[in-house]
Structures are given as structure tokens and as C-alpha cells.
């Protein structure tokens, strides 16, 4: 944090509590300039983290982050706040583990309590084939030094006593992949932390600024867009900005933004629904995930149970809730924890997930010079936020694709070199 930044501390909290003084705004309302070195589309976790690391690690501060709504109003504020690194491919494991490390020190780095709770993560296996995949994941994880192992039902019961591990259920629990470093983070705090820190380092955060078009020249498509061309700027609802580098950090609208530059993406957008119950006394110490039952459960510090599911099967931009989801979710959760049948659901919401064919993201350079993407984050964007920002910033600053994100390049689809993460990234399989 630079000198002029307002530092949060226990003493400040006490003083404000006693004097009831107002807190300073977390970030400025900057003037809208018509030229920036880097324009980042999407003021969510990925966009803000990229801006933050550009400013702090690489000294690139003439950066604008544009959002058509408010900061963290998309996937960053709608996810179920779970973090873990027990993936299936070595590329995925290394990547998400770096993210976990960044989450670990984030409260100090950003001077904001992000409420990281390293509470352990259980992925349940209900079939022999699921158990086999768990063993596979555990071995891949261990090889890379990640704490991850397969445990049997009696140990599952010790970690999460409310689970029904008896063999008499419809889908008996045969074991679980136990990942102690996994946990939950307060997702809004992460967004605010990155936004505040980026702002203090000189980044301009423009909310209520919708990108209408990406301006290109020299490309093979109409208006100079498409492969072979280069980016000259963006047209927004508040005027044109010229910039040599434009980064697409959107989720839900990634294809629409990318089509503006003439770069089609291998993405279909699906909503993912989630729900939260009324608060109760804390009884669930770990995060519990079941692939076969398409559900994941964790309990917040306030005592609410947060439920997430797989993406809706029909691709759409509409984010309304459905009765099918609520029924299926309730049935599946009760299958795992029959004891909570009297709990009431309090809220239900959904967010947009950009699904790629191999359940891995699309990151880095594109055939249009100066146009970069950090998209296709499906159902795993939150846990990857910090490392995505770090690697995208390094890629932008050095002009070379960072080694860690090289496997996630857009060209893997035309080269047929996919990174299959379906076995570990999603619960809907």
C-alpha cells in the first residue's frame, strides 16, 4: 500500500466505533480519460486482480477497468465462495494451488479482512468409478505436494458428522477425497480489497460504463476486426477510449464482447443456480461436495447453509430461478444430510457461467493483436481469481504468454490440444 492509502487497523475500528465517524470511500470516482495504456473490460474479481497486479508488480498504472454495472456484480458476487486446488490435470493443480497461496496472504497484502477460512474440503464418492477418479486426483495432487487423500466413510463421518454415511441410502457414500487446505473466502471482500488497492495505486475504476464496441484496424473481418488485425480502443456508453491493449475479463458476456473484436470463442453461457438457508448453529465444519448428487454445501460464519449446483442444462442469458432446481437440490441435500429436513430456504439466485468444451478457461493472446482474453471461467472463476490476475498482468507486461497459462491458450481448440478438467472442475457429470 502506498503512503496516501487509508490503512485499516484495529485501532481505527475502535476509534470509528467510539466517535461514529464516517469511513473514507474505498475507491475514488475517477475522471473519464480518452486514452489508457490498458483497458480491462469487466470489473469483477479477474479484471480487478489483473489491474492490481499490473499496478503493483509491473508499475503499469495508466489502466482503466470498465464495468457496465457495479464492481463485483456478476460472477464475483454470485459464486459460492469455495476455494481448493485438488484438480485433475497437473496444469490445473499448479495453477489453482498458486491461487490458494495468494488467498492465504491476501488479507495482509490488501489490508482488508477477506475472511479466508481454511476449513477442509470433502468431495464425496458414491460410485466405484467416482472413487477411482478420487484416487487418481489424490495421486496427481500428492505428486505436486498438495495435501489431498482418499478417506473412507468412517473418516468422512469424523470430518462432517451430519452426513449420512450408512450403506442404506440411495447413493451410499463410499469414500471421499479430503483436501484440508480448501475452504471458503468472503467473495465480496476480495473484490473490494482488489478494487481499493488498485485504486490506491492509480488504476481508474469506471462503473456504469458499458462497452459497446471494440475498435480494431487491419483485420480480415468487417471494420478491420478479426484475425491479423490490431486493437485501437473501445467504444463505451460514455465515449471512446483509445488503448493499445484491451483485456476481456467478463463472465457471462465473454462471447458477446469477444465477437466485437471478431474473435469467436468456444463458449456457451449457462446459468448456475445457488441457494441459502436460514441461519442455524454452526454444525458443518467442512465444505462438502457431491458430484453424483450435483451439489456442494458449506456453512457461513452466520450459520446459513450455502448450496450450489451444476449449471442449468439449457444455455441462456436469463438468470431466473426454477422450481426444478429447488426440488432437485432439496432432494439431493437431504440425501446427504437427512437431519436438516426442517430447515427453510431463504434465498435463491443464479449467475452466468461461460462453459468451454474442456472445462478449462481461455486465457492470453488472441489472433487480434492487443486483444487478450481471460474468459471461459465456467464454475471455477472465483477460486482462480488471484492467480489469473497475476498471470494475466505478467502476460500483458512482458508481452509473452506466462508459462502457467500457456496450456489455456485459445489456439488449443484449433490445434486440438484440450485440457480436460471435467472430472474435477464440475459437479454436473
Amino acid at each position, binding site marked *: 500500500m502506498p503512503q496516501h492509502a487509508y490503512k485499516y487497523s484495529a485501532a481505527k475500528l475502535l476509534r470509528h466505533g467510539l466517535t461514529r465517524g464516517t469511513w473514507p470511500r474505498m475507491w475514488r470516482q475517477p475522471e473519464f480519460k480518452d486514452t489508457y495504456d490498458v483497458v480491462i473490460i469487466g470489473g469483477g474479481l479477474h479484471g480487478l486482480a489483473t489491474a492490481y497486479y499490473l499496478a503493483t508488480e509491473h508499475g503499469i498504472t495508466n489502466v482503466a477497468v470498465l464495468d457496465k454495472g457495479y464492481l463485483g456484480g456478476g460472477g464475483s458476487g454470485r459464486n459460492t465462495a469455495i476455494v481448493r486446488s485438488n484438480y485433475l490435470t497437473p496444469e490445473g493443480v499448479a495453477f489453482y494451488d498458486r491461487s490458494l497461496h495468494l488467498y492465504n496472504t491476501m488479507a495482509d497484502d490488501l489490508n482488508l479482512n477477506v475472511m479466508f477460512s481454511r476449513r477442509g474440503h470433502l468431495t464425496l464418492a458414491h460410485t466405484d468409478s467416482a472413487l477411482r477418479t478420487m484416487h487418481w486426483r489424490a495421486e496427481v495432487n500428492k505428486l505436486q505436494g498438495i495435501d489431498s487423500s482418499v478417506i473412507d466413510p468412517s473418516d468422512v463421518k469424523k470430518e462432517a458428522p451430519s452426513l449420512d454415511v450408512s450403506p442404506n441410502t440411495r447413493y451410499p457414500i463410499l469414500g471421499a477425497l479430503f483436501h484440508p487446505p480448501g475452504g471458503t473466502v468472503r467473495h465480496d471482500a476480495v473484490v473490494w480489497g482488489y478494487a481499493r488497492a488498485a485504486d490506491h495505486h492509480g488504476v481508474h475504476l469506471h462503473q456504469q460504463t458499458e462497452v459497446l464496441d471494440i475498435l480494431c484496424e487491419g483485420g480480415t473481418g468487417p471494420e478491420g476486426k478479426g484475425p491479423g488485425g490490431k486493437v485501437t480502443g473501445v467504444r463505451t456508453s460514455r465515449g471512446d477510449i483509445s488503448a493499445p491493449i484491451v483485456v476481456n475479463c467478463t463472465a457471462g458476456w465473454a462471447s458477446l464482447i469477444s465477437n466485437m473484436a471478431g474473435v*469467436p470463442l468456444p463458449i456457451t453461457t449457462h446459468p448456475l443456480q445457488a441457494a441459502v438457508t436460514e441461519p442455524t448453529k454452526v454444525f458443518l465444519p467442512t465444505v462438502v461436495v457431491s458430484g453424483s448428487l450435483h451439489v456442494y454445501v458449506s456453512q457461513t460464519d452466520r450459520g446459513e447453509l450455502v448450496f450450489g449446483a451444476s449449471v442449468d*442444462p439449457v444455455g441462456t442469458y436469463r438468470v431466473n430461478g426454477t422450481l426444478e432446481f429447488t426440488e432437485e437440490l432439496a432432494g439431493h441435500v437431504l440425501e446427504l444430510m437427512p437431519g436438516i429436513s426442517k430447515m427453510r430456504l431463504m434465498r435463491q439466485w443464479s449467475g452466468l457461467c461461460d462453459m468451454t468444451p474442456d472445462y478449462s478457461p481461455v486465457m492470453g493472446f488472441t489472433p487480434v493483436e492487443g486483444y487478450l482474453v481471460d474468459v471461459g471461467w465456467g464454475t471455477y472463476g472465483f477460486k482462480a481469481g488471484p492467480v489469473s490476475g497475476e498471470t494475466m498482468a505478467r502476460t500483458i507486461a512482458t508481452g509473452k504468454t506466462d508459462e502457467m497459462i500457456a496450456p489455456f491458450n485459445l489456439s488449443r*481448440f*484449433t490445434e486440438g490440444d484440450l485440457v480436460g478438467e471435467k472430472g474435477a472442475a464440475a459437479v454436473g457429470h
Partner: protein
Amino acid sequence: MIIVPCPHCGPRNSVDLRNCGEVVNRPNPDTATLTEWRTYLYLRENAAGWVSETWYCRAGCRRYFTIERNTVTNEIRDQS
């Protein structure tokens, strides 16, 4: 809930069918280059608005058919 008008089975809840995504033109596998083929396999318009898409009536007549759906409102209209 999305009600999908199957041309053979009539209106049905979308959970009885499978959404196979937007209609994409399949190149001739004998002459297509690898790039053309993979473009057909993976790249999508993913438009917000009216799109032509394929549905499979998996719990009914098991036939494939094409309809137009608005991906912002989920309204459906016949392909005509």
C-alpha cells in the same frame, strides 16, 4: 420452466428434452481442413437474442428438431 414445442409430441417441459445448442454448419469431413473441422466442433456464436438451435426429444419421440429461442427471455417461436 421452458415449454418446448416438439413437432411430434407437442409442448413438453424442457427437462424431457436435451438442448443440443445452436445450429452450426457441418463441413464436409472428406474435404474440411483440421482448422475448419475444429472450428465447427468448438467455436460458437453464443448470441444474446434469437438463435436457431437443435433439441433432442429424449423422453418422447427421440427425434432431433430445430426451433428458434430467444436466449435472453427464453421465448420460443417456430422456425418459419
